[in-house]
């Protein structure tokens, strides 16, 4: 099942990705 097929799945995936990338940013920037 592709989360992009539902609006709810898309939003949840977007929020999860936001947190993952925010951690990546902190790692890269050494913050």
């Amino acid at each position, binding site marked *: 099942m592709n989360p*992009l097929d539902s609006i709810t799945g898309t939003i949840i995936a*977007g929020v999860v*990705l*936001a947190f993952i990338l*925010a951690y*990546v*940013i902190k790692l890269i*920037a050494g*913050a």
Partner: protein
Amino acid sequence: MDILILDRWLHFLSGIVWIGLLYYFNFVQAPAMTAAAADKEGPGPAAISKYIAPLALLWFRWAALVTWLTGAYYLHAAGAYSLGGAFALGIGQNNVALTTIGMGAWLGTIMLFNVWVLIWPNQKKVLGIVAASDEEKAKAKRIAFLASRTNTLLSIPLLLFMGAAAHGLPF
């Protein structure tokens, strides 16, 4: 007159047009088209395809380009950032604001690619602006849908990082 502030203002304005229409497509038009197609007693989705979608796509794709260009100019011209540094994610610079805006810039760039390379050419087939067989239309519809949904997904971290570059991440 501060050109940089006017540029940032235009970046916000065009960004709202772009992402507002993206959310319209995903949260309103696509579900409405599905419902209209399923409603055999109703007027059907033809009017949306003929009158609304082409106009919405016109504003959508040009707003996307203006948003990217004004954003790129801001990164180039603003003293706190640099275009190359942002796209290099500020690696080695220990600058969380530069890394944050750089991550947003990458997401925005991927989204611009999706608009002009995946969504618009495929929507032209779906809407009948260019000729396509039924099979080609079905394939184009799926590609455009997934690219549009991907952009909706990416807009969520994008908006966090665009604001967070100046105002901080939530943790």
